[in-house]
């Protein structure tokens, strides 16, 4: 199983990477949306993508829209992990194609529960 972690903060990438590795994922990383799309072109499809919202070059929302526009990526599990926490922002992310939404700060337990939810959705 392969996971892609997209965040412009290297410390956040490191937290998410070690957590996803513990869950048995082979983890790839990108610092913004454009780099993440490049990673897609190099590596192929991923099973789970964790993406921050606010990043330079291409933000998380634009990345989700770009990814969902690709037919082969319609089913990938996408979770936004972000400091954004307002109602309209969550609506916007889900409307664009995110499957789940985690508001920072979070505990590992929260992340674990959200990943379980994400994977239990058909």
């Amino acid at each position, binding site marked *: 199983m392969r996971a892609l972690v997209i965040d412009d903060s290297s410390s956040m990438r490191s937290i998410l990477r070690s957590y996803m590795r513990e869950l048995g994922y082979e983890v790839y990383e990108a610092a913004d949306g454009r780099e993440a799309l490049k990673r897609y072109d190099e590596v192929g499809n991923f099973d789970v993508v964790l993406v921050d919202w606010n990043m330079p070059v291409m933000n998380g929302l634009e990345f989700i829209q770009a990814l969902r526009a690709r037919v082969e990526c319609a089913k990938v599990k996408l979770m936004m992990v972000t400091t954004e*926490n*307002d109602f309209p922002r969550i609506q916007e992310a889900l409307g664009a194609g*995110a499957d789940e939404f*985690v*508001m920072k*700060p979070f505990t590992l*337990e*929260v992340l674990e529960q959200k990943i379980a939810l994400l994977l239990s959705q058909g």
Partner: protein
Amino acid sequence: MPPTNAEFAYVRDLVKNAVAIALGPEREYLMEARLAPIAEQEGFTCVTELVRSLTGKTSTDLHWKVIEAMTTNETSFFRDIKPFEALRNKVLPQLIQNREKERQVSVWCGACSTGQEPYSLSIMLREHFPVLQNWKIKILATDISNDVLRKAQSGRYTQLEVNRGLPAQLLIKHFRKEGTEWQISDAIRNMVEFRRVNLIGTWPPMPNVDIVLLRNVLIYFPVETKTQILRNMRRILRPDSYLFMGTAETTVNLQVQYDPESYQTVTYYRPSPN
């Protein structure tokens, strides 16, 4: 002096051996806050001194106080998810079939803490059982603590609380944001009636129920109390009803009349026929 890693490891093992609940490393920061009041009450100068007094001794009341403090009120929306899947996929469809004539279903959450469990159930009924819209649905949620009941009744949760276990789709559908907190909708809140009930001792008059959720409660009680609670429960459970307990809880070795049934990895209980 703040507790050390070794002291946290001791408490973690104590809790795991006694009640089969695994405290994750993120709970370490909670230890000081949870145990400081006990340390003070018991005359210790700090949590470290309290923990050291426990080591090397067999189970005492003080051990149980520590276990309880480290585990109580640990609740989240759709906690452990599996029992909710059993309810959704097996128990409720069966029960709805059995209650088709009377068109009413009654549920009791026996230690509802801050309300996430009864509200999760209400949300699930709304989301997946539209057929129940014209039925009489009674969800009674009780706890011994007035403090947690007040919070439960308010239906207001912090960001961290709604982050835990609640799918984002359900958050935006059934909650609204007020300031920094999230308020559950009146439609969901009004489905639940909160009441204070002490499970130990004589119970107030209780309605007959179809489903009881009594999860992670009995683990704290000695065998006689567990037996008494389950016997009292048996009297208000309807013959074709269902009892859900926590994963570490069972009726094995208790003189009570229940039969286990299972859905995937979840075991629940039904009153044995008389």
